């Protein structure tokens, strides 16, 4: 039980420190133009990586399962200009149905 609490507090402190680092070190200074141009590309890079790892990744393996089908449906729905919430609901429904009957 002690192991768990030590891990919990350790993770909480590490996580808080990571999130605090940028704001504290940079302070209110304007970032140099080169850094700003990096940050402008950070969002598409991080989001693309998050989408693919959470769709195809599982315990250091690439898998093609019901999640991929759901995300593909969301992508098609978005391309067809379906409202966002409906697109996400369709993704969840697709994944749930293929899990149930696939």
């Amino acid at each position, binding site marked *: 039980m002690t192991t768990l609490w030590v891990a919990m507090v350790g993770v909480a402190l590490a996580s*808080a420190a*990571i999130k*605090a680092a940028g704001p504290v070190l940079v302070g209110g200074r304007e*970032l140099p133009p080169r850094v700003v141009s990096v940050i402008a590309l950070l*969002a*598409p890079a991080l989001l693309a990586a998050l989408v*693919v790892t959470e769709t195809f990744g599982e315990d250091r393996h690439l898998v093609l399962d019901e999640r991929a089908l*759901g995300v593909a449906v969301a992508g098609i729905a978005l391309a067809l200009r379906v409202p966002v919430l409906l697109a996400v609901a369709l993704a969840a429904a697709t994944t749930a149905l293929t899990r149930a009957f696939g």
Partner: protein
Amino acid sequence: MTNNPGGCEDLRSGGEEQETSSGSYRAGARAAIPFALAVFVVGISFGVLARSLGWGIIAPIVFSVIAFSGSAQFAVAAVLGAGGSVIAAILAAVLLNARFGPMGVAVAPYLKGGPLRRALEGQAVVDSSWALASRGGGRFDREFMIGATVPQAFAWIFGTAIGTVGGDFIGDPERLGLDVIFPAFFLVLLVEELRGGRRAVVVALVAAVLALTLVPFAPPGVPVIAAACMAALVGLRRSP
């Protein structure tokens, strides 16, 4: 607003209210409601998992309050559940959360106050809030981001509590396909970012390929950080 594929503007814009800061907090909170629902459900599944590992009722809830980090908390559960050491658990969590480092640098100029207050405001950085508050060209809306994080924090803690207490009655949330909500929403936010131009599209493609390539070889979290580093290299090389 007429050119609105995917309806992303609905998620992000606060309309006239965005002109005032309290309006921007509210707009952020409203935009985050769908995410908060997803976070709530994932919180329940974390509670159920933690309970099944014999963590009791108090510890999982305290963990969600002090860490407020889904991916890190699941990683700790996985490592400790498999008999791993405390150090291994903390290391896995650090790797998974390392992306919040560059994200914190990105929002830093927009936060307020002295070091302590900035450190506190920086805790509001979570993937969805950060991306929702991105205004393109590296600019961020501080109030919108903080507003977006508040309902998600409550949802995470409340969901964990429900999962630990009532887990036996709920069953497996994956059955409902709810684990696909996060990648689907990140896709929504990505589509919005891709309108930033051809460079964003190229970086996103390379990031996706790089991350997928690394999944089998690197611990979880590293593929996402590698994608961020790659974006940095492209940004530095081709900046004016």
